[in-house]
């Protein structure tokens, strides 16, 4: 009798212990299930968001080829983000001239007037060709939804004939005003400086990438006729747009 009672008590204690252990194990497995469920599909979602952004930027690039230069003359840019930008400069161009036509003409400078290489400076040689203005006005409008969502962008041109280890597709053109951006911070950092009588200018996209930004970029071939060669050959450029999420705030000059 003595042995039977002792065994029964131990058995009941063991049963309660087993029950509690079972509950503990179930709680742990439930925690794992919740951890799995909370992260389920996040990567796919992230990939699809990036795919949307890339598709949006590709649409921006395609639109630049079709939008008429005169169509962007009505855009009113804000001075803080786009200083010295007068979109009215493009109003007299006929509808057959697209923004990309003006940019290609602007980048087709001959070496007589541009010994340092072609520049995006609103000039074709010594004639007015407001490609830079048209591109800035167009991108200001086309990138508006992304800019409102806190994204900053750079648009720049790479020279395919000059590949570098950092940029195998080609080195970014180095000229004053050749980087089009809505980032005041990186815009300043990407301005050209003269070192040893040579113009040195970092790529805007690479600057942002090196600063740790999560960069998305799209690029397309952008051939510009070499007018000095009688128009028989073309300079092979790449038109690149990159975006990144930024907490950079824009302050008006008066503030």
């Amino acid at each position, binding site marked *: 009798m003595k042995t039977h009672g002792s065994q029964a008590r131990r058995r*009941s204690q063991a049963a309660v212990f087993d029950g509690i252990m079972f509950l503990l194990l*179930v709680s742990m497995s439930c925690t794992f299930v919740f951890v799995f469920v909370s992260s389920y*599909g996040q990567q796919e979602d992230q990939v699809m968001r990036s795919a*949307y952004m890339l*598709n*949006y930027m590709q649409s921006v690039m*395609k639109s630049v080829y079709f939008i008429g230069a005169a169509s962007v003359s009505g855009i009113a840019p804000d001075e803080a983000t786009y200083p010295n930008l007068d979109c009215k400069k493009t109003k007299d161009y006929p*509808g057959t001239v697209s923004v990309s036509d003006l940019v290609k003409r602007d980048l087709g400078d001959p070496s007589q007037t541009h010994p340092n290489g072609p520049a995006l400076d609103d000039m074709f040689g010594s004639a007015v060709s407001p490609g830079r203005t048209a591109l800035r006005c167009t991108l200001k409008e086309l990138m508006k939804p992304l800019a409102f969502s806190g994204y900053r962008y750079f648009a720049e041109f790479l020279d395919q004939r000059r590949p570098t280890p950092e940029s195998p597709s080609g080195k970014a053109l180095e000229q004053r005003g050749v980087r089009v951006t809505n980032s005041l911070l990186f815009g300043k950092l990407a301005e050209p400086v003269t070192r040893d009588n040579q113009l040195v200018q970092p790529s805007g996209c690479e600057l942002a990438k090196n600063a740790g930004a999560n960069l998305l970029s799209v690029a397309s071939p952008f051939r510009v006729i070499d007018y000095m060669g009688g128009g028989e050959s073309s300079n092979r450029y790449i038109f690149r747009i990159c975006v990144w999420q930024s907490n950079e705030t824009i302050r008006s000059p008066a503030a």
Partner: protein
Amino acid sequence: MPKRPSLLRGFVGPLGDDIPSIFPIVAGVLLFIGTMAYAASLVAEKNSYLEIRKASLGLSYLVTERGQMNTEELGTMCDSKLRKYGTNSRVKFIVTLDRQCGGYVFDTDPLAPYDVSAAYGYCSNLDAAAIVASEISARSPVILNYPVAVPCPNADSPTEGFGIINVIVWR
């Protein structure tokens, strides 16, 4: 009251001693089943959302294959590609094309993207009468916007200006 031997105190029989352990076991089983059911419903909901997003991206790739668009081109593409894709993906969709020649203006009305009567052109796998803005909005659709070149300054102009394509997909 007869006094029980001290070694038998607390002993309520072979079955009675197991009753306290049954409560944590039952609670554990219920918790586990409840968690699995909840997890399965969340995974199914997420999968459905991902499928809708995938379908919306697929429709977007089709509709933005060129950088320019007018109503005739949208109509042709609608009949040849978009409706078939939407039906095969088992989603309902509206693709609207808007002209915003003066520059993009964002609507403050949340139901504005569903208003096909105000659009320059639209495509859907639903009849016009079945497109009710409030009902679509209640289904939390995926909405994607893309820039495109459209005829400007008039709807029949040969020149191109700013336009926008809205891709709205739901199930």
